């Protein structure tokens, strides 16, 4: 049966033992792609969805029409945000092994996506992230301590012990609660944006999901509703090439870019170098201006790479080559911005070392404080009775009964 099979199965370029192979990636040199007016009709700017917007060239210079012309202070702040995100991720990854937190997911290699977008948007814009957007909280200024307490499910946990680590939320920071169910946030962001249009708000909605998650129905619902109602929303596919062990070809990437789905629904699609802070920032500004002006939604595909394991429960050595990230043609977002700043004389290896050390100290100090509020294994601990709250606004009779049963079970605690 296998013998005669004619079924096409997407190819995975390289598996363990083989050399990393990125020849499948359609690339373009920096600065080569035109920047249309943000109001341009979606079907007249399809080249954006199949090309690749890049600003940083091989010599680390910012070139071409998409150069956002940001000042050095802004770029230094960006570097700091990305580096803090990375240092935080590294530390939490190591700590998870100690058992003090149950689980962790890093955004290593994708820091530019969240940091550049958060910086290019307004604080009032509403964000609907996936679990790999740590940079959003960093840019918007949520104390690392708060994030750590969530990871620890401790007495200061914003989720009151109910969510897996990393499933943050922040109402006052305009960042929606992260769902464990992939892609559900995508059409919700469109609904939020529809409401913004109905209410005449200026704020727009922005959502992210992975290229693997773009296979879910919610991706289609999001594009369709955004198209039908011209919702002021930016929808991002973070194409980091992998969905756990599954290569992006299995999500449709073998035939067409993910950004090209946009024009299929009559909305703008842009494919951007996701490891190029300047390019992501510029594309975000463009799409935000477009949405705010009432010219409709944009689908952005960020071409990047999941440099780390999927999560602390995952071991990529089982399914992809080692040293792959080192060979990724779009490099590392932190290194690229750092080298750009050095090239323009606004940064140095010394300052970089110093900054790294400073941030590591900050993380270490925050952790010291965080564990004082308890860990998964050590007191103090949240009251388990919290389990019964927020199922409904007011606790109904049957849950009050069940809470009483539990307290009895726990020996009247």
């Amino acid at each position, binding site marked *: 049966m296998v013998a005669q099979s004619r079924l096409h199965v997407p190819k995975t370029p390289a598996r363990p033992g083989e050399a990393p192979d990125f020849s499948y990636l359609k690339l373009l040199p920096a600065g080569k792609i035109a920047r249309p007016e943000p109001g341009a009709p979606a079907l007249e700017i399809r080249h954006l969805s199949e090309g690749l917007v890049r600003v940083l060239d091989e010599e680390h210079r910012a070139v071409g029409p998409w150069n956002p012309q940001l000042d050095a202070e802004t770029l230094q702040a960006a570097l700091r945000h990305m580096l803090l995100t990375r240092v935080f991720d590294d530390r939490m990854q190591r700590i998870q092994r100690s058992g003090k937190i149950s689980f962790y997911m890093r955004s290593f290699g994708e820091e530019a996506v969240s940091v550049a977008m958060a910086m290019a948007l307004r604080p009032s814009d509403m964000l609907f992230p996936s679990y790999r957007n740590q940079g959003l909280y960093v840019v918007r200024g949520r104390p690392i301590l708060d994030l750590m307490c969530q990871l620890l499910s401790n007495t200061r946990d914003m989720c009151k012990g109910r969510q897996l680590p990393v499933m943050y*939320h922040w109402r006052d920071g305009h960042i929606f*609660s992260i769902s464990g*169910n992939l892609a559900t946030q995508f059409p*919700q962001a469109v609904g*939020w944006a529809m409401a913004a249009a109905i209410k005449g708000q200026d704020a727009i909605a922005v959502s992210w999901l992975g290229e693997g998650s773009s296979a879910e129905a*919610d991706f289609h619902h999001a594009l*369709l509703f955004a198209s039908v109602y011209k919702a002021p929303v930016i929808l991002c596919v973070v194409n980091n090439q992998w969905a756990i062990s599954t290569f992006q070809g299995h999500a449709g990437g073998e035939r067409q870019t993910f950004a090209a789905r946009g024009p299929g629904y009559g909305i703008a699609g842009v494919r951007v170098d996701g490891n190029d802070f300047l390019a992501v920032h510029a594309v975000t500004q463009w799409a935000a201006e477009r949405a705010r002006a009432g010219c409709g939604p944009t689908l952005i595909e960020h071409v990047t790479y999941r440099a780390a394991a999927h999560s602390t429960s995952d071991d990529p050595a089982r399914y992809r080559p080692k040293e792959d990230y080192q060979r990724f043609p779009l490099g590392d977002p932190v290194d690229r911005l750092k080298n750009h700043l050095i090239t323009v004389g606004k940064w140095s290896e010394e300052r970089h070392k110093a900054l790294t050390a400073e941030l590591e100290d900050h993380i270490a100090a925050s952790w010291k404080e965080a564990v004082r509020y308890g860990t998964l294994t050590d007191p103090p601990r949240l009251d388990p009775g919290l389990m019964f709250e*927020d199922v409904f606004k007011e606790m109904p009779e049957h849950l009050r009964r069940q809470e009483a049963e539990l307290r009895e079970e726990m020996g009247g605690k």
Partner: protein
Amino acid sequence: MIQALNSAMDIKLGQDPSVVILGEDIGYFGGVFRVTDGLQRKYGESRVLDTPIAEGGILAAAIGMAVNGLRPVAEIQFADYIYPAYDQIVSELARIRYRSAGEFYAPVTVRTPCGGGIRGGQTHSQSPEALFAHVAGLKVVMPSNPYDAKGLLISAIEDDDPVIYFEPKRIYNGPFDGDPHKPAVPWSTHPKSEVPDGHYTVPLGKAEIVRAGDDLTIVTYGTMVHVSEAAARGLGLDAEIIDVRTMVPLDSDTICNSVARTGRCVVVHEATRFAGLGAELSATIQERCFWNLQAPILRVAGWDTPYPHAFEWEYFPGQARVAKALKAVMEAS
């Protein structure tokens, strides 16, 4: 009942600028059952939205709107078509308040016609309430008459928790005692068809004793309230009939107090029997009233098959099936 539901939405749209209505064919057309008739003309296309045919997208959009401060009322054209939205309801709508520790919540009301008796066949006749009642975080409601329909729908829209609101379509235009051969009766013949024009509420979470009695307790809801009344009358039984009205949160005190008194109970619904809401009602009553029970609690329900087009009336739990259970429970000893 259609006018009562329409009036509830009309009043809320008029009172509260954050209320919006969305669904398939509900705007210009006014809905395939005319429940939203005239509302788009009155409140505009931005507050009464015709949507694409994507139940999952409708729910997701409603959730996003609710998170942005609106109070969406989403119509699913038939309860049989709610499953494409099941993930957004179960994984999202039901748990947003919980997982965000109360920082975010989505006060969405989902209206959907349910039940058989209109020759709809297997995909226009279902009663899937149990599939929602089992999910923590959802309130589940089903009215049995125009007065409750309006008051409960206003309560649902004003409630800050998500509410799945089932409308028994067979009684949209009049009460139904289970006999399809009798001429249809209009609501006007029924006491509960007196519906005040203005704003009023019927509280969620409260069952109603629609008939007090001493012989036994019938626990039911929706269309089956009327069928049960007729069946008990037919047998000349002094039955206490309880209309559950809200399945979650369940008013188990009203139910159990009655059964504790009568000592006999029959649970009646139209949905398939196996693992239906009747099982929960029976189990709860048995746990709390065991020592008062003089007979086993019996369930009357639809059969454990899809709803067949040609055998609609053999599937539907009519007076004969209810009466048989009532007799059995009364005779048991």
